[in-house]
């Protein structure tokens, strides 16, 4: 089938401002949007720049704005996205475009690092050499937020983040949630102090764009709500 692909192109070294690159290509309806982009890059215009690594929805490299919604290009089928023979692709919003689909992810990762995204446990390791034990219910508690692949779909779909890049953003809060609600972790207080800052969780207006955008199906807004509740009550349950 024929596909008219509209891609927002921008090379800051050459272009004064972004422009729409329009490409007519032949695709299979069961192809993914990523396949269409690769078809353009490999056969039409080799200057098109995009990130992708695994191409199977795990590495989180190819987050982009497809028909106005943040999606992973490798998880969207052409037949689901095509409207009037056309698909529109833009880079994710709120981060500086370096070239075409490639944005500067550093502010995103700076927010990620700010919430201490690693297990903190000062107790000595169990003497029998086995792992730190946790009940099934305790593991279940933060299961949803372990699914994050740091693709930035959620953070760059958030109007609060668009308006103010200092907002720590949904992805960082999801990562904080993953450790705050882990019974083996001992740094909940430090993480909650970061998130109680003026650019922490209180910037969230429960818009739910993040939940809609998440390619892993994480209930992001719910996780943010649980962090807010922990800050409000001081109880992590």
């Amino acid at each position, binding site marked *: 089938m024929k596909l008219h692909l509209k891609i927002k192109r921008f090379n800051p070294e050459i272009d004064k401002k972004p422009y729409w690159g329009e490409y007519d290509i032949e695709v299979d309806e069961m192809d993914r949007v990523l396949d269409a982009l690769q078809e353009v890059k490999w056969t039409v215009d080799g200057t098109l720049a995009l990130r992708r690594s695994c191409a199977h929805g795990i590495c989180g490299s190819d987050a982009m704005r497809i028909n106005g919604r943040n999606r992973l290009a490798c998880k969207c089928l052409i037949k689901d996205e095509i409207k009037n023979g056309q698909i529109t692709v833009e880079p994710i919003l709120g981060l500086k475009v370096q070239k075409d689909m490639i944005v500067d992810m550093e502010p995103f990762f700076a927010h990620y690092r700010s919430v201490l995204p690693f297990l903190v446990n000062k107790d000595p390791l169990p003497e*029998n050499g*086995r792992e730190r*034990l*946790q*009940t*099934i*219910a*305790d593991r279940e*508690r933060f299961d949803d937020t372990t699914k994050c692949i740091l693709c930035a779909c959620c953070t760059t779909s958030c109007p*609060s983040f668009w*308006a*103010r890049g200092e907002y720590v953003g949904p992805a960082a809060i999801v990562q904080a949630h993953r450790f705050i609600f882990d*019974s083996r972790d001992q740094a*909940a*207080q430090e993480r*909650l*102090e970061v998130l*109680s*800052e*003026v650019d*922490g969780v*209180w*910037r969230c*207006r429960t818009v739910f764009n993040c939940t809609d955008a998440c390619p892993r199906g994480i209930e992001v807004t719910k996780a943010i709500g649980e962090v*807010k509740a*922990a*800050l*409000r*009550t*001081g*109880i*992590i*349950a």
Partner: protein
Amino acid sequence: MTIQTLNPAQRTIRTVKPMPLARNRFERMAWIFMRFSGLILVFLSLSHFWLQHLIVGTHQLQFGQTVARWGAAGAPVTIENVFWRLYYVAIIALAMLHGLNGFRQVAYDYLNNRGVYRGVMIAATGVIAVVSLMGLVALLGGATIVK
């Protein structure tokens, strides 16, 4: 070697200090205030709307009805007057603070120049203060027909 087993259904509940840093308490309190004032305002503003537009009626709305509820200036204040004054004090106070805080959130998001943000917030707080002061005058003084 003994293998430690745990009750799979057991859930750990931990506590932290809910207000970690003093400078962050304000944001937390503001957020809680927005939730509760919003909820209360739903009932207050809807009942106000119901009273003025449906019970009294838009076309029958006269200053006399307000005076009857509010109490005329100089006249003795009845229990009914006290109720209505408190009712409208609640509406004005909650709506003003709810609106001011909402405006603060939006201004903080979009005004990246801290000086501009501060100036806008001082101006907005001034407007709210003047309007609230007018409300306070009416609260204490009662309704007066200005000729």
